[in-house]
């Protein structure tokens, strides 16, 4: 028994407070659950609380939802599932690799190379679009390739100016989250339409949406996974290096299995983020790859406030995340998320 354990009256006071907070947390979820089983008449007639006691539960709202009377529910659910699962898997994988590289390898580059990248990307885009008369898509592709090539080549030379390292790259990754998503969503929509004119369909397509979600989950994956990797004992890796095991086998064969709990936690956080995402889905999808939050929000405006069907749709979006909460809390109990906050 730890010294920090509460005793006597304080213990009961804390319990009371927690119960109060739990009631506040759970009541809205309970309310949405029971509303989805009410008839329209029972909803309009004023608040009722207990099924079979003060209202008769019915499955009407659920039948309507599943049968597709309120928008292509089944398709939306499957689209949501596919996009969020694949985006979360890919983001966790790619992000974990980057995070590992940032923890264990040395990166050095001059500030000047980074500036070259920004200036060339910027200038090339302006030049292509306004001076040479290319479309946005073409000028973007050219200027991006030119900028990347020049930046990489320039980093081979001993340029003057301050030197940047791993921490600066991490900071750059994480700072991507400061950017207001509305800007990115809108500009991305325009970029996708431009690329669409070149023949690659990205708006309302699987690749377009998944790609955007991967990019916007990466900062958080790099941030979380870096701490998990830093907490791993380095001795195992050093022993493997002495035996001349190549780095990629150290990573896939030793490091990844060791950080499985961290990977699972990161994967689930990313999944929740993508599953619930609203703004990008609103801009980047229209019908085929529409995701659940859009459908749920759409229930709102279609035919006035039909709370029973709104509740059923909202519940479908909530239930998978409830299951995840259970799994995550078990992971947490074993102290596995500790590394994430240092």
């Amino acid at each position, binding site marked *: 028994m730890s010294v920090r354990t509460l005793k006597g009256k304080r213990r009961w006071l804390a*319990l009371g407070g927690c119960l109060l907070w739990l009631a506040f947390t759970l009541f809205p979820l309970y309310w949405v659950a029971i509303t989805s089983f009410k008839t329209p008449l029972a909803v309009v007639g004023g608040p009722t609380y207990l099924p079979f006691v003060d209202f008769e539960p019915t499955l009407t709202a659920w039948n309507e939802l599943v049968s597709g009377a309120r928008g292509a529910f089944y398709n939306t659910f499957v689209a949501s599932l596919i996009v969020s699962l694949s985006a979360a898997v890919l983001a966790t994988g790619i992000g974990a690799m980057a995070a590992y590289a940032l923890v264990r390898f040395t990166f050095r580059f001059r500030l000047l190379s980074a500036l070259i990248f920004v200036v060339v990307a910027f200038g090339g885009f302006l030049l292509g679009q306004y001076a040479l008369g290319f479309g946005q898509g073409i000028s973007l592709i050219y200027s991006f390739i030119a900028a990347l090539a020049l930046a990489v080549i320039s980093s081979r030379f001993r340029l003057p100016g301050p030197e940047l390292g791993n921490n600066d790259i991490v900071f750059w990754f994480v700072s991507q989250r400061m950017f207001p998503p509305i*800007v990115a969503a809108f500009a991305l929509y325009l970029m996708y339409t431009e690329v669409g004119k070149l023949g690659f369909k990205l708006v309302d397509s699987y690749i377009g949406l998944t790609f955007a979600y991967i990019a916007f989950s*990466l900062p958080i994956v790099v941030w979380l996974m870096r701490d998990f990797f830093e907490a791993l004992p380095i001795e195992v890796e050093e022993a493997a290096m002495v035996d001349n095991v190549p780095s990629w086998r150290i990573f896939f064969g030793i490091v990844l299995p060791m950080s499985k709990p961290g990977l699972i936690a990161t994967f689930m956080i990313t999944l929740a983020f993508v599953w619930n995402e609203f703004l990008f889905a609103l801009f980047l999808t229209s019908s085929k790859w529409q995701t659940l939050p859009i459908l749920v929000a759409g229930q709102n405006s279609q035919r006035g406030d039909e709370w029973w069907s709104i509740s059923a749709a909202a519940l479908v979006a909530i239930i998978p995340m409830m299951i995840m909460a259970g799994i995550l809390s078990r992971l947490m109990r074993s102290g596995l998320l500790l590394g994430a906050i240092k």
Partner: protein
Amino acid sequence: MTRNDPIKHFFIWPALIIVLLISIFPLVYSLTTSFMSMRLVPPMPARFVGFGNYADLLSNPRFWHVAGTTTLIAIVSVGLQYVIGLSVALALNSRVPGEGIFRVGFLLPMLVAPVAVALVARQILNPTMGPLNEFMTLFGFPNLPFLTRTSWALGSIIVVEVWQWTPFVILMLLAGLQTLPDDVYEAAALENATPWQQFRDITFPMLLPISAAVVFIRLIESYKIMDTVFVMTGGGPGVSTETLTLFAYQEGFKKFNLGYTSALSFLFLIFITVIGLVYLAVLKPYLEKHK
């Protein structure tokens, strides 16, 4: 200790390229358009206006109003989240009975889609069939205009934000509390320090770095609030609950006023950066004192 191996490029480039592609374009594109006058509906050719959009915005009272509303929502809700989150985390850390159940319950709101949360909130706050108004009339209140009167609507949005994001604060602070060393508390217990003294002199100062980080993250995320307001009030009544992101959405997607929206986004970015820097500057002396 880090090592050098050409394979490192293979590890980092996939992530780097994806983020560069998806983030550099919006940046380049919106910075260019922010200096132009550009409308899609009605279609107008792009025209260079320099800082015109910025000047327009800065002299627009609606912009300042929106920035004020967003700041109010962010500061009040993050403050409440921190106070409640810390209390709950302390209770959980000291093994309140039934701790296991609480943990699952506390985590839930964070994982629910904000859109769904806002829809549920609208049902509960509904003046005629919502349970909250029935509950309030029990105490003799009249029917309260939760979403149609400015002050109530702001309050409701803040409560929903607190509901949704306090779990994140609990999660982080709980993890932080578990890393605090036991021996300091044992020493304090030997000296007969009261629980309040222990909290004031040990727990709170030692938790300060994590607290600062959590509040920072929440503050930045709160400034981007959109889904909840969009569904709950749509910015109304009038424009009284409109937030920065919603304002940008209205200008960009309803009026297709691209230059204006881009300028707005950059002002927003500058705004957030300034707030972040001020926050860090204010906290720095405290953080260094307790290092």
